[in-house]
């Protein structure tokens, strides 16, 4: 079974898309701090820490719809637009992780749409039909 979660309309910088998708035992979530009404980084994302928090909040919204939590995350791909943001990003990221649960992570420097400085793609895994955890 496949379920698209929080489908969103196009903006000038992002196509029509879903914030996440649940497919079988897996959930894929995109975390960013875009304001959907403007297609730009939300005004509340002033610091890198703010932006990381908003990225995880977006991921939480997808996980919640799929019946999962951050403890079910298994992998993240993280994007920062400038190496100068990396130290604050790492600190904020670790603060957002459940204690002792650190998904496999890669962090890369690249440009992002809408003046965002941070984005996080996440993969989570729930239980198998037989009740066994992934």
């Amino acid at each position, binding site marked *: 079974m496949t379920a698209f979660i929080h489908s969103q309309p196009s903006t000038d*910088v992002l196509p029509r898309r879903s914030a996440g998708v649940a497919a079988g035992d897996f959930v894929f979530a995109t975390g960013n701090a875009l304001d959907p009404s403007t297609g730009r980084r939300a005004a509340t994302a002033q610091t890198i820490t703010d932006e990381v928090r908003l990225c995880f909040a977006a991921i939480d919204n997808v996980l919640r719809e799929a019946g999962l939590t951050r403890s079910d995350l298994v992998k993240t791909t993280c994007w920062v637009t400038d190496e100068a943001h990396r130290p604050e990003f790492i600190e904020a990221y670790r603060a957002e992780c459940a204690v002792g649960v650190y998904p496999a992570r890669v962090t890369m420097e690249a440009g992002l749409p809408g003046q965002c400085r941070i*984005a996080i793609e996440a993969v989570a895994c729930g239980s198998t039909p037989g009740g066994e955890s992934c």
Partner: protein
Amino acid sequence: MSTITRGGPFAYASSLAIDVVTMSLVPEADTVRNETRLVFDRITAQLESKGASLGDVIKTTCYLRDESYLAEFVQAYDEVFQSHSPATHIAILGIAGNCRVQIEVVATRTPAERDEHAPIPSAVNTLDPKESQ
């Protein structure tokens, strides 16, 4: 290197509109819009070779060489996915040759195919509190 693989319940495909002999953009990809269409044509061919289609795509990661290509890319992308909206991430970075667009997709297997395969191996969360990178 493969441009498409299947593992567990998913197929993974990626492409760009490159001529691998010249390592340059093919002439048909004269605009960002045409380049995007061509990339999806190639991905479609890959998916179809494994019995899947664009309708099975659930997630994309899209790479553009320059942010100025975004508006034209968004328009072309919206034309490709009219029946459903995959989870989508876009990053701006360098791409091989003079290509402007590269796309990777994750597609689901059909339920019938999925039933034929063994359960997915366990995933492990690291427990190292000093995890960092």
